[in-house]
């Protein structure tokens, strides 16, 4: 008798929950291990200032794989999840970037 709900955004009500295939779980696992190997190997090669960039890039790729596949963000119909993730990263970036804007320009004349 109670009214069913709600003016909330359309959710994945009609489509069944996505079940990851065993293959994709293992494939991502292998990719993550490969990334780890790569980043450790790259650390021992002199790339000058690019060492840090390479390490961070590989870390970000690994993190993205975890978020998209293991945390199911690729298979969700919720755009809100993506917005939450992007917001967190954006504001973290602001904290880091604007703080560094101070430190990197302190000695400028």
């Amino acid at each position, binding site marked *: 008798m109670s009214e069913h709900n709600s003016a*909330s*955004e359309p959710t994945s009500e009609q489509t069944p929950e996505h079940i990851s295939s065993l293959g994709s779980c293992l494939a991502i696992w292998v990719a993550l291990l490969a990334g780890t190997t790569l980043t450790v190997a790259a650390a021992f090669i002199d790339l000058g200032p690019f060492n840090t960039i390479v390490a961070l890039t590989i870390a970000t790729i690994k993190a993205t794989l975890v978020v998209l596949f293991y945390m199911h963000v690729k298979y969700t119909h919720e755009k809100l999840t993506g917005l939450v993730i992007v917001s967190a990263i954006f504001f973290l970036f602001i904290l880091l970037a604007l703080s560094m804007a*101070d430190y990197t*320009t302190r000695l400028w004349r």
Partner: protein
Amino acid sequence: MATAVVSDSGERETYLNSGYGLKSWLLTVDHKRIALLYLMSITFFFFIGGFFALLIRLELLTPGGGLVQSDTYNKLFTMHGQVMVFFFVIPGVPAVLGNFLIPLMIGAKDLAFPRINLLSWYLYVIGGILMIYTILNGGVDTGWTFYTPLSTEFLKTNVISAALGVFVAGFSSILTGLNFIVTIHRMRAPGMTWNRLPLFVWAHYATSIIQVLGTPVVAITIVLVALERLFHLGVFNPALGGDPLLFQHLFWFYSHPAVYIMILPSMGIVSEIVCCFSRKRIFGYKAMTLAVVGIAVIGFLVWAHHMFVAGISLYAALIFSLLSYFVAVPSAIKVFNWTATMYKGSITYQTPMLYAFGFIGLFTIGGLTGLFLACLGMDVHVHDTYFVIAHFHYIMVGGMVMAYLGGMHFWWPKISGRMYPEGWGKLAALIVFIGFNLTFFPQFILGYMGMPRRYHMYPPEFQILNVLSTAGATILAVGYLLPMIYFTWSMRYGDPAPSNPWNAAGLEWQTHSPPPTFNFDEQPVVTWEAYNYDEMDEIPEIREVPVAN
């Protein structure tokens, strides 16, 4: 037509009579009861913070340090600041009015996570107990801002317990914000689209974003301060290669958006009141919603304007100064839109509207003086003077507290089922307004003339303004005590309130006063726009059922 739930003895079931005894309150998951729990605790801390303020003003009556030693004075302004900021102004409106009203306004039975809501209150209480312990154990004298290395290296006072209290209260804030965001996204009634939401709800949504994303940064900063104090780490200690400014960056990254946590909910209250007592839709609904979100986002980009003279690079200072000018724009838009709402409205001057008027004027002054401070050249002269103190008190007291009181009066009939005495309400509002301006306007002048903040001794030529300020503070105190008295009186002797005493728009007025535990007799379905004061007859009327026969 849905019927109210009535017990066998003829009493209508409300959230107030659906269970008696301490356990039914301390273990409640009803958002309305939790709001009242918060009301008790927040009022308690308001008076503690206010007590410290009165001691400060007493000390400042004379130019020489008369009443207390310098070290004690340091504790007075620190405790005043910490208690007020972290235990009154930041939680105040969201915890009391937000908790009570958001489910009602969106047509839901409760918040998304009622048990987390209760947990939030307990965290607030635990943080508060830590703060009380700090006070009783001799206080803390770092200033509310905990600046390093003073707080980490040189003080023997209760820095860690105070910091821990703030940390725990911070998690209360994060969980409340999280709860509100999920509630507003997921629990809206059928037909309650985003563009039909009351601006009060939008304001809390924007506030919640800040609470969730900003508070953790000050939380980790506090952890670092505690670790540094305990283990002499050196992260903020220049003698060990640390940078005190790093603390300030991390601290202000939260504490500047925190001031928007303080003001945005109050702006939401003002929108509701102005529309009701002008009998008009809000002018520029879309702009108002964009403005609150804009304030929340831009508010994260301006924090180093608190650090202009601390030693940051000039180029960073220029960037932050420019960004600080931007953040004033959405706030100004809101002031213009409230004014435009009132234009050609059918205005009446009940107590809530008086507070709303007070807010608009005083917030404008506070906001404009903020722009003076955002100007680098000016800030060099007035930083760390009473000018800054006057600026933020205009916003926090002239703004937030006024709106909070206005909201308490506006929704009191809904919360308690009683009307407060209108004559006393108007009198108290007038006393608050006069007391407030007498307290804080002289401080603009004092600051401009050079009186530093956090000093209890000052040149004799500043005395007359300080005396005026103290006189104002006393009047203000009376103005705050009056509602305490007549609200309490009204709970027993006030006129029983109908469901919609103000004939206001909004779903919260479509249910009984006080509401039943599950808020509505039947699930509301919304088919009208927000603030439809020109089409009030489209809204179905509720059948009044008095609480007792």
